[in-house]
């Protein structure tokens, strides 16, 4: 009966085991608790690297698949697997988590519970990315909600309870209709095939009438749109980000938001392709509105964290635009942008958090002239700012470029509008940078600030290295995504409009002739 956990199960178990071991350690031993949490998240990262290394870059189908019956009477199974789409999101999660834990070194209060929730959150997020059974996916989707709720609600800022509740209510308002849709879908499958299943790969083969697809797509889509967040479902995001502790913001922006875009790509679009095609104009419109709206609102924010939060609305709008371009460049760009947004926004939140630790304020007006006071900090901040803007040579550029390239061939008008978002992005980020780092030092308190310490450099160095690597050498990433994106696109568009490029190399230049 007993069997060893498979590759992916082990990945899910590593943080969870760490979380439960933490519970056994007395709360006075702060250092032990932190080290243990860090070690288990690093173990998960190393294991995910091993998966990356063992991953077959040429295959578009699911790899490392594990199937264990769970509730066989209802066709519910523990089914997990990784393909070129989820691989990078899994890596992003395991990469950011140790950094988030090191960034939590300054948390004084109730560190044991804090770390416990962080590790449970990691398992929840990883589970949602690898689940290939809709029931299992829903379970992980909800499991990750609870720790985040606690992280915001217990360790957050002054309006934390309001923000935490808003976060949960919004998410649940989306996910409960999704639960009904999941059950409905499985029942429809049972109706057609006489056997019930929640197995995603089986459900892909079910073709429902268009009007039913539209309802189901809307039910799934609402849940994902809230998570992304797609305009106009974004209002929970600024509150949650501002109140969350630094590590919470990093994980929220870095990983949780991608749950929404990933959900569209993995579930809503391939399960209900006809509905996706019908609703594409609506979603593209909302995405473009989100890009411009998010950027415009970000420009006027007095609070650094809020500015970064609204910039996420704008950047995730790009991701949605790319996904719904429904061509290979758009979707690849979307995935690439998910990962690079996770890195650059994660880094921005880390930097803002470091500033907050020193000065206990996040208001732009309280700073100015930090360039000479904090030289190292300023340079790193500048690199991340450029990455976020999408400067060529850094990671943000590749994603945005591919998205615009893909979207332009599909929706030129909307894409032209979206491209203004790039300009707006440059404006608000650089303006913010100028106000914080240049000019005269008006506030004498800033004169006492100290530059980054070793721990902080240790957190930032890997992120910045990866930002640069992803900016100049995207090939390993894009080539591993490509087969899976092809498969997904095939599912969405069907056989009559199969994507053309199959064996081309996948650098953006060559790919531009893909259509």
């Amino acid at each position, binding site marked *: 009966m007993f069997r060893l956990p498979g590759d992916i199960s082990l990945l899910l178990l590593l943080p969870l085991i760490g979380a439960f071991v933490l519970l056994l350690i007395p709360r006075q031993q702060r250092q032990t608790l932190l080290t243990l949490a860090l070690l288990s998240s690093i173990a998960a990262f190393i294991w995910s690297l091993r998966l990356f290394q063992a991953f077959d870059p040429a295959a578009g189908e699911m790899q490392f698949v594990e199937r264990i019956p769970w509730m*066989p009477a209802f066709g519910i199974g523990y089914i997990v697997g990784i393909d070129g789409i989820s691989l990078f999101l899994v890596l992003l999660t395991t990469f950011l988590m140790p950094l988030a834990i090191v960034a939590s070194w300054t948390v004084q209060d109730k560190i044991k519970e804090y770390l416990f929730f962080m590790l449970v959150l990691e398992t929840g997020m990883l589970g949602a990315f690898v689940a290939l059974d809709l029931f299992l996916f829903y379970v992980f989707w909800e499991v990750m909600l609870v720790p985040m709720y606690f992280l915001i609600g217990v360790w957050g800022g002054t309006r934390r309870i309001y923000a935490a509740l808003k976060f949960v209510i919004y998410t649940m308002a989306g996910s409960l209709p999704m639960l009904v849709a999941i*059950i409905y879908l499985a029942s429809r499958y049972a109706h057609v095939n006489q056997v019930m299943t929640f197995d995603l790969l089986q459900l892909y083969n079910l073709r429902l009438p268009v009007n039913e697809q539209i309802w189901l797509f809307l039910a799934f889509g609402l849940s994902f749109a809230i998570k992304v967040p797609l305009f106009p479902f974004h209002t929970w995001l600024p509150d949650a980000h501002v109140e969350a502790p630094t590590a919470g913001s990093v994980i929220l922006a870095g990983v949780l938001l991608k749950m929404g875009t990933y959900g569209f790509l993995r579930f809503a679009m391939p399960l209900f392709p006809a509905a996706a095609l019908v609703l594409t104009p609506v979603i593209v419109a909302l995405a473009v509105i989100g890009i411009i709206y998010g950027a415009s609102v970000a420009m006027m924010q007095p609070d650094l964290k809020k500015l970064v939060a609204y910039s996420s609305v704008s950047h995730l709008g790009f991701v949605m635009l790319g996904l719904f371009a429904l061509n290979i460049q758009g979707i690849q760009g979307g995935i690439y942008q998910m990962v690079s947004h996770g890195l650059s926004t994660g880094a921005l939140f880390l930097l803002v958090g470091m500033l907050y630790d020193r000065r206990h304020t996040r208001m732009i007006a309280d700073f100015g002239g930090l360039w000479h006071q904090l030289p190292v900090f300023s340079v790193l901040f500048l690199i991340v700012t450029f990455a976020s803007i999408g400067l060529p040579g850094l990671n943000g550029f590749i994603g945005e470029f591919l998205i615009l390239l893909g979207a332009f061939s599909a929706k030129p008008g909307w894409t032209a509008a979206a491209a203004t978002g790039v300009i707006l992005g440059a404006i608000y980020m650089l303006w913010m940078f100028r106000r914080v780092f240049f000019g005269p030092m008006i506030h004498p308190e800033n004169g006492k600030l100290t530059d980054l310490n070793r721990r902080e450099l240790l957190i930032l160095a890997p992120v910045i290295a990866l930002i640069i690597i992803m900016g100049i050498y995207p090939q390993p990433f894009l080539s591993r995504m490509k087969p899976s994106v092809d498969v997904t696109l095939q599912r969405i568009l069907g056989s009559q409009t199969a994507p053309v490029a199959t064996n081309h190399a996948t650098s953006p230049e060559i790919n531009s002739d893909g259509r």
Partner: protein
Amino acid sequence: MDVNLVPLLPAAQVLLAALVVMLLDLFFAEHEKPLLAWISIFGLALCAVDAVLLWGSREGTFADTFLLDNFSLFFTQLFVAAAILTVLSSVRYVREAGIHEGEYYSLILFATAGMIVMAAANDLIVFFLGLETMSVAVYVLTGIWRSSARSSEAAMKYFLMGSFATGFLLYGIALIYGATGTTNLTEIAAYLLEPQEQWPRYLSVGGLLLLVGFAFKVGAVPFHFWIPDVYEGAPTPVTGFMSVAVKAAAFAAWARILMHQLSPLDSDWAYAVRVLAIATMTLGNLLAISQSSVKRMLAYSSIAHAGYILIGIVAGEEWGSTSVLFYLATYVPVTFGAFAVITALTERDRPKEEYGHFAGLGFKRPFLAMAMTFFMLSLAGFPPLAGFTGKFHIFRSAIAAGYTDLAIIGVLNSLLSLIYYLRVIVMMYMSEGGVQGKSLAESPSLYVAVALATVATIYLGILPTRAVEWSRIAYSTLF
């Protein structure tokens, strides 16, 4: 006459334990009285063992008015589990509150025996017998804390309202008897196979009156008015017992009598039950939001949960009924656990049930707060906990039976319920202050009860397959 006594075994054992407890009470010195609790548990455990051993048998007795089948055994297990949890969490509470222990424990056992009879009854009169045995015992239990005005008031209300509902039930039974000439459910079911045109008009009136009586007992809106006051006033372990076991017993009888044997009358009330389900969920949840007392909030939440169960009843057929049984099985540990935590916080001078009293509990009493968190999240329907799997099966059966609208209303209600369940968590973990004094009821056995409920909450959430299968077998033996 040759009477087969085997089917009576589980009920008889509990009754015997009740009598033994009552008798020993006379001979025990004051400090020996806690032993009565362990004797009660022993009796209940014996009954549980019997129920396990008898699983799969199918026998009737007293001219088939009393049936021992998987259905009644399934519910026997639920009742016994609830009763054991109740006794465990009462040990210190009754002593400190000055409640007479002998009476208290024997009444719990009598009530349990009544419930077992209700679940096993295949005759309207036998069912009524069980119902009254249970109800009278619970009326008394509600008012057993004689020095508490709240408790006495609740008992009075419960008694008056309960008797009123009993009147409806009896009237319904009388009309059905008048129409069919029998009280035996099998014979009634045979009668109902005849063409509808030949039924007397008042037969459906009888059916509707039964429905009203049942709706009252499970606390469905608009027959729910007694619940908040009675739940709030009763001693907290008794409230827990009522909210799980009494409710389960009423649903057991509902399943056997209305859903199964009288199902041809469905056409008269199917629509009514749908309306009941929607009204019960929605009103229960809306009213729960505005409560300032956690105990009262849980009372309204138990109304809301009755509404979810009614969805399963509307869905009917094999999976709808299975989901009802399974939901009740998940509901027992979760709801009882929540009341057990409230019991643990009871203090002598103040009823410790306001939200404010939970403030900061998370870091002062980590175990209780963690358990309460599990119960609240489970009630709210978070996976992977028992409440989620229960709701999942209810909604699944509703969607499979074509009631997607009910499932949608159900999930929207779950969303509403988040507001008040999360408030408890907010208080425990995210608010400071809150002074906890010396607890009246804390004892190792209470902690055992809370721990058992927590384990069951998690177990039924992660590995529900076996319990679902038992529920299915239990229901399918009715046929």
